[in-house]
């Protein structure tokens, strides 16, 4: 009982650590369960993130998503000028073993696409929140962002989802 409580409190401490210092890799063997989650972003239940700055929102998939996928070998993205709709697919990520649709968390016009991913799809694994970004969108309705999850809520969502599998 005491040991279980100790393990639980240690895990909680690690979670706090990973949230506040996302690039610090926890030293324990179960660190894979603690994918990083950044403050300042919004999250969708299909594991995409959004960073809204000024008139543009940047979108990618989360660290949790890339961890579940494994190594990404191909990223299929749309062309600039197209539109995306909230909860609809705009592309796909291919790993060694699986194909996954990427859904947009918001609606709007695509203004930029990360061309680097064509040559270096592994950026999605190595840098999901920075170099591995996918599309930039001019939101048609910024209030759609309000219904997305914040980092704490998303962290809890991932824990519950993993626990149920």
């Amino acid at each position, binding site marked *: 009982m005491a040991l279980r409580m100790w393990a639980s409190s240690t895990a909680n401490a690690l979670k706090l650590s990973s949230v506040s210092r996302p690039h610090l890799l926890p030293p324990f063997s179960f660190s894979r369960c603690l994918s990083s989650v950044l403050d300042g972003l919004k999250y969708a239940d299909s594991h995409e993130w959004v960073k809204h700055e000024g008139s543009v929102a940047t979108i990618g998939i989360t660290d949790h998503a890339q961890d579940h*996928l494994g*190594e990404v070998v*191909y990223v299929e993205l749309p062309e600039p000028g197209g539109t995306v709709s909230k909860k609809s697919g705009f592309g796909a990520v*291919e790993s*060694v*073993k699986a194909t*996954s649709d990427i859904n947009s968390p918001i609606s709007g016009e695509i203004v930029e696409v990360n061309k680097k991913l064509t040559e270096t799809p592994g950026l999605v694994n190595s840098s999901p929140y920075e170099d591995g970004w996918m599309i930039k969108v001019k939101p048609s309705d910024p209030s759609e962002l309000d219904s997305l999850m914040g980092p704490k809520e998303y962290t809890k969502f991932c824990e519950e989802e993993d626990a149920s599998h």
Partner: protein
Amino acid sequence: MRGSLWQLGQSITRRLAHGDKKAVARRCFASEAELKKTVFHDFHVAHGGKMVPFAGWSMPIQYKDSIMDSTINCRQNGSLFDVSHMCGLSLKGKDAVPFLEKLVIADVAGLAPGTGTLTVFTNEKGGAIDDSVITKVTDDHIYLVVNAGCRDKDLAHIEEHMKAFKAKGGDVSWHIHDERSLLALQGPLAAPVLQHLTKEDLSKLFFGEFRVLDINGSQCFLTRTGYTGEDGFEISVPSEHGLDLAKAILEKSEGKVRLTGLGARDSLRLEAGLCLYGNDMEQHITPIEAGLTWAIGKRRRAEGGFLGADVILKQLEEGPKIRRVGFFSSGPPPRSHSEIQDEGGNNIGEITSGGFSPCLQKNIAMGYVKSGLHKAGTKVKIIIRGKPNEGVLTKMPFVPTKYYKPS
């Protein structure tokens, strides 16, 4: 984003269940808690195994190593796989050989004792019920292993024919080795590592050969075979000694032989050009179409005597209408069911397995195209999410095999 390794496990399970209506219903409703566990289950979890449902079992699809790294490490050093979900059985009796020859395309009578081969169980139309590695232990004892996803239908099929055979006075009986567990040790370090654990000289055991011998203190069935294209062994060990053996193998290799999951195993067999039953081989695909003509013994081509022989021997004579071929392609990796078109946009076939090859660092696939369009070097389009991608037909294996054979 939808999809994960967990869903991949589900997808493979559904594919394996395809064509078996009862199994489909049962598997769709199985909760994870109802999945069967091998004796290695807790060992997998303790070593970071990601467990997924696979053919009714909870199996590791991956460990801490990525699927990419695991695949490459198997070919450079070695891999240890738990394949206990596959079903091992023995057929015994004076008439075991003629009985089995009614059900499979192999020349079982022509096998020397202590040797085995890949074969196919056929249905009345010559289609594949399952592929299996069969081994003649003695003239009245056959040991075989069938695929996990086909176990129920295979055992029902064998039992049905055994009843009829015995009713006519045939002498055959069977034993299902559920008291044993199966490990696959594959890769260049497989033989040197295993040699540490047994006194018998493994350099005298060649590809396809079988021995009953002591390994790490327990009586094992050892076959020099595998489904990776590498040199290696499948080891049937009494379940109570399975964990000790797995640990001993990992320990003797000093960390170079790695626990490896089903995800890498699938990459390895695809790179080796080997069929996955449920994807590349099904009830409506004959061994000829699947490119397994070599597995039909010479005598059997002359005599037939197996289920569906009339269809198969006719295809031998006239050629099949479709053929399994390999592909390289650009763009997204092809997956099962991607359409294949010729350069004029006409449908000529379908992909049955595909993915990104860790060893080659490019897309590979296999599938079926119309006969006449199966020549290596033929250019095709592979349609993925509605878009055509450049592809070219190639011979298989994609990665050369390294079976241990007499030189």
